[in-house]
Protein backbone atom coordinates (compact mmCIF):
# COMPACT_ATOMS: atom_id res chain seq x y z
CA UNK A 1 0.00 0.00 0.00
CA UNK A 2 1.32 3.43 -0.97
CA UNK A 3 0.96 6.70 0.91
CA UNK A 4 1.36 10.24 -0.46
CA UNK A 5 5.03 11.17 -0.78
CA UNK A 6 6.22 7.57 -0.69
CA UNK A 7 9.11 6.78 -3.04
CA UNK A 8 8.02 4.14 -5.55
CA UNK A 9 10.93 3.92 -7.96
CA UNK A 10 13.24 5.65 -10.39
CA UNK A 11 12.34 6.95 -13.85
CA UNK A 12 15.16 4.84 -15.26
CA UNK A 13 13.20 1.69 -14.36
CA UNK A 14 9.55 2.80 -14.49
CA UNK A 15 7.17 5.23 -16.15
CA UNK A 16 4.84 7.24 -13.85
CA UNK A 17 1.16 6.40 -14.16
CA UNK A 18 -2.05 7.66 -12.50
CA UNK A 19 -1.79 8.43 -8.79
CA UNK A 20 1.93 9.24 -8.98
CA UNK A 21 4.12 12.27 -9.57
CA UNK A 22 7.71 12.94 -10.57
CA UNK A 23 10.31 14.70 -8.46
CA UNK A 24 14.03 14.77 -9.25
CA UNK A 25 13.95 11.70 -11.52
CA UNK A 26 12.04 9.67 -8.92
CA UNK A 27 8.43 8.51 -8.90
CA UNK A 28 6.41 9.23 -5.76
CA UNK A 29 2.86 8.29 -4.76
CA UNK A 30 0.27 11.09 -4.71
CA UNK A 31 -2.65 9.21 -3.17
CA UNK A 32 -3.34 6.34 -0.77
CA UNK A 33 -3.91 3.04 -2.51
CA UNK A 34 -2.54 -0.13 -4.03
CA UNK A 35 0.61 0.02 -6.13
CA UNK A 36 0.17 -1.61 -9.51
CA UNK A 37 2.85 -2.27 -12.08
CA UNK A 38 1.70 -2.84 -15.65
CA UNK A 39 4.12 -4.13 -18.23
CA UNK A 40 3.35 -2.80 -21.71
CA UNK A 41 2.78 -5.29 -24.52
CA UNK A 42 5.70 -5.90 -26.82
CA UNK A 43 5.22 -3.89 -29.97
CA UNK A 44 5.48 -5.67 -33.32
CA UNK A 45 8.58 -4.91 -35.33
CA UNK A 46 8.31 -1.75 -37.35
CA UNK A 47 5.75 -0.02 -35.09
CA UNK A 48 6.95 3.30 -33.71
CA UNK A 49 7.30 3.49 -29.89
CA UNK A 50 4.71 5.41 -27.86
CA UNK A 51 5.82 9.01 -27.22
CA UNK A 52 5.29 8.87 -23.45
CA UNK A 53 7.05 5.51 -23.10
CA UNK A 54 9.66 5.14 -25.85
CA UNK A 55 11.77 2.57 -23.98
CA UNK A 56 8.70 0.39 -23.23
CA UNK A 57 9.24 0.45 -19.45
CA UNK A 58 6.65 -0.86 -16.96
CA UNK A 59 4.13 1.74 -15.74
CA UNK A 60 3.82 2.38 -12.00
CA UNK A 61 0.43 3.60 -10.79
CA UNK A 62 -1.47 3.91 -7.52
CA UNK A 63 -5.19 3.14 -7.53
CA UNK A 64 -7.73 3.85 -4.82
CA UNK A 65 -10.27 1.17 -3.88
CA UNK A 66 -13.77 2.07 -5.06
CA UNK A 67 -15.56 1.45 -1.78
CA UNK A 68 -14.66 3.60 1.19
CA UNK A 69 -15.23 2.24 4.70
CA UNK A 70 -16.74 4.70 7.11
CA UNK A 71 -15.68 4.63 10.75
CA UNK A 72 -18.98 6.02 11.92
CA UNK A 73 -21.53 5.24 9.23
CA UNK A 74 -24.66 7.32 8.99
CA UNK A 75 -26.62 4.33 7.70
CA UNK A 76 -26.14 0.60 7.69
CA UNK A 77 -24.80 0.57 4.16
CA UNK A 78 -21.07 1.22 3.94
CA UNK A 79 -21.19 2.23 0.29
CA UNK A 80 -24.39 3.58 -1.22
CA UNK A 81 -25.56 2.74 -4.72
CA UNK A 82 -26.12 5.74 -6.95
CA UNK A 83 -28.87 5.88 -9.58
CA UNK A 84 -27.61 5.18 -13.08
CA UNK A 85 -29.25 5.64 -16.46
CA UNK A 86 -31.77 2.81 -17.07
CA UNK A 87 -31.78 1.73 -13.42
CA UNK A 88 -35.21 1.01 -11.94
CA UNK A 89 -36.01 2.97 -8.81
CA UNK A 90 -38.76 3.46 -6.24
CA UNK A 91 -39.64 7.09 -5.53
CA UNK A 92 -42.17 9.17 -3.64
CA UNK A 93 -43.99 12.01 -5.38
CA UNK A 94 -43.44 15.18 -3.35
CA UNK A 95 -44.83 17.99 -5.50
CA UNK A 96 -46.92 18.38 -8.64
CA UNK A 97 -47.08 21.08 -11.27
CA UNK A 98 -48.84 21.00 -14.64
CA UNK A 99 -45.56 20.32 -16.44
CA UNK A 100 -43.64 18.07 -14.08
CA UNK A 101 -43.70 16.10 -10.86
CA UNK A 102 -41.01 16.34 -8.22
CA UNK A 103 -40.03 13.07 -6.60
CA UNK A 104 -37.60 11.69 -4.06
CA UNK A 105 -35.74 8.48 -4.91
CA UNK A 106 -36.04 6.08 -1.99
CA UNK A 107 -34.63 2.81 -3.32
CA UNK A 108 -32.57 1.65 -6.28
CA UNK A 109 -32.37 -1.82 -7.77
CA UNK A 110 -28.72 -2.90 -8.14
CA UNK A 111 -27.27 -2.32 -11.63
CA UNK A 112 -26.50 -6.01 -12.27
CA UNK A 113 -30.14 -6.88 -11.68
CA UNK A 114 -31.40 -4.46 -14.30
CA UNK A 115 -28.98 -5.66 -16.95
CA UNK A 116 -29.62 -9.38 -16.48
CA UNK A 117 -33.41 -9.24 -16.18
CA UNK A 118 -35.56 -9.21 -19.33
CA UNK A 119 -37.58 -6.08 -20.05
CA UNK A 120 -40.91 -7.78 -19.43
CA UNK A 121 -39.98 -9.11 -16.00
CA UNK A 122 -39.67 -6.82 -13.02
CA UNK A 123 -36.01 -6.28 -12.20
CA UNK A 124 -36.96 -5.56 -8.60
CA UNK A 125 -38.23 -9.11 -8.18
CA UNK A 126 -34.94 -10.72 -9.22
CA UNK A 127 -33.01 -8.85 -6.52
CA UNK A 128 -34.51 -6.59 -3.85
CA UNK A 129 -33.98 -2.83 -4.16
CA UNK A 130 -31.37 -1.19 -1.97
CA UNK A 131 -32.55 1.71 0.19
CA UNK A 132 -30.69 4.95 -0.48
CA UNK A 133 -28.38 6.24 2.23
CA UNK A 134 -29.92 9.67 1.67
CA UNK A 135 -32.79 10.61 -0.70
CA UNK A 136 -32.01 11.82 -4.22
CA UNK A 137 -34.17 14.49 -5.88
CA UNK A 138 -35.78 13.60 -9.21
CA UNK A 139 -38.08 15.09 -11.84
CA UNK A 140 -40.78 13.40 -13.90
CA UNK A 141 -41.93 15.43 -16.92
CA UNK A 142 -45.41 15.04 -18.44
CA UNK A 143 -44.02 13.73 -21.74
CA UNK A 144 -42.24 10.91 -19.87
CA UNK A 145 -45.31 9.61 -18.03
CA UNK A 146 -46.57 7.30 -20.77
CA UNK A 147 -45.47 6.24 -24.23
CA UNK A 148 -48.76 6.97 -26.06
CA UNK A 149 -50.97 10.07 -26.39
CA UNK A 150 -48.35 12.26 -24.73
CA UNK A 151 -50.22 15.45 -25.60
CA UNK A 152 -53.34 14.35 -23.67
CA UNK A 153 -51.56 13.57 -20.39
CA UNK A 154 -52.77 15.44 -17.32
CA UNK A 155 -50.50 15.38 -14.32
CA UNK A 156 -53.29 15.23 -11.72
CA UNK A 157 -54.78 12.21 -13.50
CA UNK A 158 -51.47 10.35 -13.26
CA UNK A 159 -50.02 10.99 -9.80
CA UNK A 160 -50.76 12.59 -6.45
CA UNK A 161 -48.30 13.78 -3.79
CA UNK A 162 -47.34 10.91 -1.50
CA UNK A 163 -47.68 8.19 -4.15
CA UNK A 164 -44.93 5.60 -4.34
CA UNK A 165 -43.94 5.04 -7.95
CA UNK A 166 -41.72 2.61 -9.80
CA UNK A 167 -39.78 4.46 -12.49
CA UNK A 168 -36.74 4.29 -14.68
CA UNK A 169 -33.88 6.81 -14.67
CA UNK A 170 -33.58 8.23 -18.18
CA UNK A 171 -30.98 10.91 -17.45
CA UNK A 172 -28.64 11.93 -14.66
CA UNK A 173 -30.14 15.40 -15.06
CA UNK A 174 -28.83 18.60 -13.52
CA UNK A 175 -28.98 20.31 -10.13
CA UNK A 176 -32.77 19.80 -10.11
CA UNK A 177 -32.27 16.06 -9.91
CA UNK A 178 -32.41 12.88 -11.94
CA UNK A 179 -34.93 12.60 -14.79
CA UNK A 180 -37.40 9.73 -14.49
CA UNK A 181 -39.78 7.98 -16.86
CA UNK A 182 -42.82 5.75 -16.32
CA UNK A 183 -43.41 5.14 -20.04
CA UNK A 184 -43.66 1.35 -19.70
CA UNK A 185 -46.46 -0.96 -18.58
CA UNK A 186 -44.64 -2.17 -15.48
CA UNK A 187 -43.76 1.38 -14.42
CA UNK A 188 -46.06 3.78 -12.59
CA UNK A 189 -47.83 4.03 -9.24
CA UNK A 190 -47.35 0.98 -7.02
CA UNK A 191 -48.67 2.35 -3.73
CA UNK A 192 -51.23 5.10 -3.26
CA UNK A 193 -53.65 6.37 -0.65
CA UNK A 194 -56.80 8.44 -0.93
CA UNK A 195 -57.52 11.65 0.99
CA UNK A 196 -58.81 9.75 4.03
CA UNK A 197 -55.69 7.59 4.17
CA UNK A 198 -57.28 4.43 2.75
CA UNK A 199 -54.95 2.35 0.61
CA UNK A 200 -55.86 2.22 -3.07
CA UNK A 201 -55.68 -0.93 -5.18
CA UNK A 202 -55.22 -1.11 -8.97
CA UNK A 203 -58.43 -1.47 -10.96
CA UNK A 204 -57.19 -0.75 -14.48
CA UNK A 205 -54.08 0.72 -16.08
CA UNK A 206 -55.41 4.21 -15.39
CA UNK A 207 -57.52 3.78 -12.26
CA UNK A 208 -57.08 2.87 -8.61
CA UNK A 209 -59.77 2.58 -5.98
CA UNK A 210 -60.65 1.56 -2.46
CA UNK A 211 -62.11 -1.88 -1.83
CA UNK A 212 -64.74 -2.46 0.88
CA UNK A 213 -66.29 -5.92 1.37
CA UNK A 214 -65.17 -7.02 -2.07
CA UNK A 215 -66.77 -4.02 -3.74
CA UNK A 216 -64.91 -1.16 -5.38
CA UNK A 217 -65.51 2.15 -3.66
CA UNK A 218 -64.25 5.56 -4.72
CA UNK A 219 -62.06 5.54 -7.82
CA UNK A 220 -59.11 7.82 -8.50
CA UNK A 221 -57.18 8.30 -11.75
CA UNK A 222 -53.55 7.14 -11.69
CA UNK A 223 -50.88 5.91 -14.10
CA UNK A 224 -50.82 2.43 -12.60
CA UNK A 225 -47.84 0.10 -12.73
CA UNK A 226 -48.77 -3.33 -14.08
CA UNK A 227 -49.01 -5.71 -11.07
CA UNK A 228 -47.06 -9.00 -11.15
Amino acid sequence: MALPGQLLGSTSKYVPGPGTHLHEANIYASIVGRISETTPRKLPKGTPPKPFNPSNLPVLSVSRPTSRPVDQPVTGATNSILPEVESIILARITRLTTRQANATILAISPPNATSSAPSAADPLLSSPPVACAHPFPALLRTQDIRATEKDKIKMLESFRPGDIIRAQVISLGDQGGYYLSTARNELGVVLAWDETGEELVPISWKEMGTVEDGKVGAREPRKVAKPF
Partner: protein
Amino acid sequence: MPLDTSSYALALLRLDGRRWCELRRIHGQVSTQAAADGSSYLEMGNTKVICTVAGPSEVKKTGQQGGVGGEARIEVDISIAGFSGVDRKRRGRNDKRVSELQHTLSTAFSSILLTHLYPHSTIQLSLHVLAQDGALLAACINAATLALVDAGVPMYDYLVACTAGSTSHSAAATTQTASQDVEDPLLDLNGTEEQELPFLTVGTLGATDKVSVLVCETRVHATRIGEMLALGVDGCKQVRQILDEVVRAHGRKMVNS
Protein backbone atom coordinates in the same frame (compact mmCIF):
# COMPACT_ATOMS: atom_id res chain seq x y z
CA MET B 1 -1.94 35.60 36.53
CA PRO B 2 1.28 35.30 34.48
CA LEU B 3 2.66 31.86 33.77
CA ASP B 4 5.51 31.01 36.13
CA THR B 5 8.11 29.12 34.12
CA SER B 6 10.85 29.30 36.75
CA SER B 7 10.25 25.71 37.85
CA TYR B 8 10.50 24.31 34.31
CA ALA B 9 14.29 23.91 34.39
CA LEU B 10 14.37 22.53 37.92
CA ALA B 11 11.59 19.98 37.54
CA LEU B 12 12.28 19.39 33.84
CA LEU B 13 8.50 19.25 33.46
CA ARG B 14 5.84 21.66 32.27
CA LEU B 15 2.46 22.49 33.82
CA ASP B 16 0.78 19.52 32.16
CA GLY B 17 3.59 17.14 33.10
CA ARG B 18 5.34 17.03 29.72
CA ARG B 19 9.03 17.40 29.07
CA TRP B 20 10.25 20.26 26.84
CA CYS B 21 10.48 18.10 23.70
CA GLU B 22 7.28 16.11 24.24
CA LEU B 23 4.15 16.30 22.11
CA ARG B 24 0.66 16.20 23.51
CA ARG B 25 -1.53 13.17 22.79
CA ILE B 26 -2.53 13.20 19.13
CA HIS B 27 -5.58 11.20 18.13
CA GLY B 28 -6.78 11.15 14.54
CA GLN B 29 -9.66 9.53 12.68
CA VAL B 30 -10.14 9.39 8.93
CA SER B 31 -13.39 9.10 6.97
CA THR B 32 -15.69 10.10 9.80
CA GLN B 33 -18.53 11.46 7.63
CA ALA B 34 -20.12 9.38 4.91
CA ALA B 35 -21.55 12.26 2.90
CA ALA B 36 -18.25 14.12 2.42
CA ASP B 37 -15.63 13.29 -0.22
CA GLY B 38 -13.05 13.24 2.54
CA SER B 39 -13.29 13.85 6.26
CA SER B 40 -11.21 13.67 9.41
CA TYR B 41 -11.27 14.31 13.13
CA LEU B 42 -8.13 15.34 14.98
CA GLU B 43 -7.27 15.93 18.60
CA MET B 44 -3.98 17.58 19.56
CA GLY B 45 -4.21 17.58 23.31
CA ASN B 46 -7.42 19.44 24.07
CA THR B 47 -7.60 21.11 20.66
CA LYS B 48 -10.24 19.30 18.63
CA VAL B 49 -10.95 19.88 14.94
CA ILE B 50 -13.29 18.29 12.41
CA CYS B 51 -12.46 18.71 8.73
CA THR B 52 -14.47 17.84 5.62
CA VAL B 53 -13.38 18.08 2.00
CA ALA B 54 -15.72 18.59 -0.94
CA GLY B 55 -14.29 18.29 -4.41
CA PRO B 56 -12.54 18.70 -6.69
CA SER B 57 -15.82 19.93 -8.14
CA GLU B 58 -16.99 22.46 -10.69
CA VAL B 59 -17.51 26.03 -9.54
CA LYS B 60 -21.00 26.42 -8.05
CA LYS B 61 -21.45 30.19 -8.23
CA THR B 62 -22.24 31.72 -11.60
CA GLY B 63 -19.58 33.92 -13.13
CA GLN B 64 -16.97 32.54 -10.76
CA GLN B 65 -13.78 31.01 -12.10
CA GLY B 66 -11.61 28.18 -10.81
CA GLY B 67 -7.99 28.65 -9.84
CA VAL B 68 -5.47 30.82 -11.64
CA GLY B 69 -3.78 29.49 -14.79
CA GLY B 70 -5.88 26.37 -15.22
CA GLU B 71 -5.43 25.10 -11.67
CA ALA B 72 -7.94 24.21 -8.98
CA ARG B 73 -8.76 26.85 -6.40
CA ILE B 74 -8.69 25.89 -2.74
CA GLU B 75 -11.44 27.42 -0.64
CA VAL B 76 -11.12 27.20 3.12
CA ASP B 77 -13.96 27.82 5.53
CA ILE B 78 -13.20 27.78 9.25
CA SER B 79 -15.94 27.97 11.84
CA ILE B 80 -14.93 28.25 15.46
CA ALA B 81 -17.60 27.05 17.86
CA GLY B 82 -18.63 29.46 20.61
CA PHE B 83 -18.04 26.81 23.24
CA SER B 84 -14.55 25.96 21.96
CA GLY B 85 -12.70 28.48 24.10
CA VAL B 86 -12.99 29.90 27.60
CA ASP B 87 -13.88 33.43 26.47
CA ARG B 88 -16.88 32.31 24.36
CA LYS B 89 -16.23 34.93 21.68
CA ARG B 90 -18.71 35.26 18.86
CA ARG B 91 -16.61 35.36 15.72
CA GLY B 92 -18.31 36.85 12.67
CA ARG B 93 -18.01 35.81 9.03
CA ASN B 94 -15.24 38.31 8.30
CA ASP B 95 -13.32 38.01 11.55
CA LYS B 96 -9.69 39.00 10.96
CA ARG B 97 -8.24 36.08 12.88
CA VAL B 98 -10.36 33.51 11.03
CA SER B 99 -9.68 35.16 7.65
CA GLU B 100 -5.96 34.99 8.33
CA LEU B 101 -6.16 31.31 9.24
CA GLN B 102 -8.18 30.61 6.09
CA HIS B 103 -5.69 32.43 3.89
CA THR B 104 -2.73 30.62 5.49
CA LEU B 105 -4.33 27.22 4.92
CA SER B 106 -5.36 28.07 1.36
CA THR B 107 -1.89 29.22 0.31
CA ALA B 108 -0.18 26.35 2.14
CA PHE B 109 -2.23 23.65 0.44
CA SER B 110 -2.07 25.33 -2.97
CA SER B 111 1.61 24.46 -3.11
CA ILE B 112 1.17 20.92 -1.77
CA LEU B 113 -1.74 19.64 -3.88
CA LEU B 114 -1.46 18.76 -7.56
CA THR B 115 -3.96 21.46 -8.49
CA HIS B 116 -3.00 21.47 -12.18
CA LEU B 117 -4.82 18.14 -12.57
CA TYR B 118 -8.16 19.85 -11.89
CA PRO B 119 -8.44 23.03 -13.98
CA HIS B 120 -11.41 25.36 -13.37
CA SER B 121 -12.36 23.45 -10.22
CA THR B 122 -12.62 24.13 -6.53
CA ILE B 123 -11.54 22.05 -3.57
CA GLN B 124 -13.49 23.11 -0.52
CA LEU B 125 -12.10 22.59 2.96
CA SER B 126 -14.50 23.06 5.87
CA LEU B 127 -12.97 23.10 9.32
CA HIS B 128 -14.96 23.12 12.53
CA VAL B 129 -13.06 23.92 15.70
CA LEU B 130 -14.73 22.16 18.61
CA ALA B 131 -12.19 22.92 21.33
CA GLN B 132 -9.20 25.25 21.56
CA ASP B 133 -6.19 24.67 23.75
CA GLY B 134 -3.25 25.97 21.74
CA ALA B 135 -1.77 25.01 18.36
CA LEU B 136 -4.99 25.85 16.49
CA LEU B 137 -3.35 26.49 13.12
CA ALA B 138 -1.25 23.34 13.46
CA ALA B 139 -4.32 21.25 14.31
CA CYS B 140 -6.22 22.70 11.34
CA ILE B 141 -3.35 21.91 8.96
CA ASN B 142 -3.02 18.34 10.24
CA ALA B 143 -6.78 17.72 10.12
CA ALA B 144 -6.97 19.13 6.59
CA THR B 145 -4.10 16.90 5.48
CA LEU B 146 -5.89 13.79 6.76
CA ALA B 147 -9.15 14.82 5.09
CA LEU B 148 -7.43 15.52 1.76
CA VAL B 149 -5.69 12.14 1.89
CA ASP B 150 -9.08 10.54 2.54
CA ALA B 151 -10.66 12.45 -0.35
CA GLY B 152 -7.99 11.09 -2.69
CA VAL B 153 -6.79 14.52 -3.78
CA PRO B 154 -3.29 13.99 -5.22
CA MET B 155 -0.56 15.69 -3.20
CA TYR B 156 3.22 15.82 -3.25
CA ASP B 157 3.49 14.82 0.40
CA TYR B 158 1.84 15.29 3.77
CA LEU B 159 1.76 18.81 5.16
CA VAL B 160 2.25 18.46 8.90
CA ALA B 161 2.46 21.26 11.44
CA CYS B 162 3.52 21.81 15.01
CA THR B 163 4.14 24.71 17.38
CA ALA B 164 7.35 25.57 19.19
CA GLY B 165 7.88 28.21 21.85
CA SER B 166 10.66 29.61 23.94
CA THR B 167 10.89 30.35 27.60
CA SER B 168 13.55 32.46 29.27
CA HIS B 169 13.95 32.24 33.00
CA SER B 170 16.55 32.78 35.66
CA ALA B 171 18.08 29.45 36.50
CA ALA B 172 20.54 28.99 39.31
CA ALA B 173 23.10 27.06 37.32
CA THR B 174 26.65 26.53 38.49
CA THR B 175 28.26 28.02 35.40
CA GLN B 176 25.95 31.00 35.12
CA THR B 177 24.95 33.82 37.35
CA ALA B 178 21.37 34.13 38.48
CA SER B 179 20.85 37.22 36.35
CA GLN B 180 21.64 35.46 33.08
CA ASP B 181 18.80 34.11 30.98
CA VAL B 182 18.64 30.47 30.02
CA GLU B 183 16.38 29.91 27.02
CA ASP B 184 14.56 26.61 26.75
CA PRO B 185 12.65 25.84 23.58
CA LEU B 186 9.30 24.13 24.16
CA LEU B 187 7.45 21.84 21.77
CA ASP B 188 3.69 21.83 21.15
CA LEU B 189 2.49 24.60 23.44
CA ASN B 190 -0.88 24.40 25.14
CA GLY B 191 -3.32 27.31 25.52
CA THR B 192 -1.87 28.67 28.76
CA GLU B 193 1.69 28.60 27.44
CA GLU B 194 0.66 30.23 24.15
CA GLN B 195 -0.85 33.20 25.98
CA GLU B 196 2.34 33.90 27.92
CA LEU B 197 5.27 32.76 25.78
CA PRO B 198 6.56 33.65 22.33
CA PHE B 199 5.85 30.84 19.86
CA LEU B 200 5.74 29.98 16.18
CA THR B 201 3.83 27.48 14.07
CA VAL B 202 5.90 25.54 11.58
CA GLY B 203 4.59 23.28 8.84
CA THR B 204 6.86 20.96 6.90
CA LEU B 205 6.47 18.81 3.83
CA GLY B 206 6.42 15.18 4.90
CA ALA B 207 9.46 13.79 6.65
CA THR B 208 11.75 16.37 5.02
CA ASP B 209 13.06 19.65 6.44
CA LYS B 210 11.29 21.70 3.76
CA VAL B 211 9.30 24.37 5.56
CA SER B 212 5.99 25.24 3.88
CA VAL B 213 4.32 27.20 6.67
CA LEU B 214 6.00 29.47 9.18
CA VAL B 215 3.83 31.79 11.25
CA CYS B 216 5.09 33.78 14.21
CA GLU B 217 2.71 36.37 15.64
CA THR B 218 4.50 37.13 18.90
CA ARG B 219 7.52 39.29 19.63
CA VAL B 220 10.57 37.12 20.03
CA HIS B 221 14.29 37.78 20.05
CA ALA B 222 15.97 36.94 16.74
CA THR B 223 18.51 34.67 18.43
CA ARG B 224 15.75 32.36 19.66
CA ILE B 225 14.09 31.83 16.29
CA GLY B 226 16.69 29.30 15.12
CA GLU B 227 16.29 26.85 17.97
CA MET B 228 12.51 27.26 18.01
CA LEU B 229 12.41 26.46 14.30
CA ALA B 230 14.73 23.47 14.69
CA LEU B 231 12.55 22.06 17.47
CA GLY B 232 9.39 22.75 15.47
CA VAL B 233 10.73 20.87 12.43
CA ASP B 234 11.69 17.97 14.68
CA GLY B 235 8.19 18.02 16.16
CA CYS B 236 6.70 17.94 12.66
CA LYS B 237 8.57 14.71 11.98
CA GLN B 238 7.01 13.17 15.09
CA VAL B 239 3.56 14.39 14.03
CA ARG B 240 4.15 12.96 10.54
CA GLN B 241 4.78 9.51 12.04
CA ILE B 242 1.55 9.67 14.04
CA LEU B 243 -0.52 10.79 11.03
CA ASP B 244 1.20 8.13 8.95
CA GLU B 245 -0.03 5.45 11.35
CA VAL B 246 -3.58 6.84 11.22
CA VAL B 247 -3.59 6.77 7.40
CA ARG B 248 -1.97 3.33 7.25
CA ALA B 249 -4.56 1.85 9.61
CA HIS B 250 -7.35 3.35 7.51
CA GLY B 251 -5.65 2.29 4.28
CA ARG B 252 -5.41 -1.31 5.44
CA LYS B 253 -9.12 -1.24 6.26
CA MET B 254 -9.85 0.28 2.85
CA VAL B 255 -7.73 -2.23 0.92
CA ASN B 256 -9.12 -5.24 2.81
CA SER B 257 -12.76 -4.22 2.32
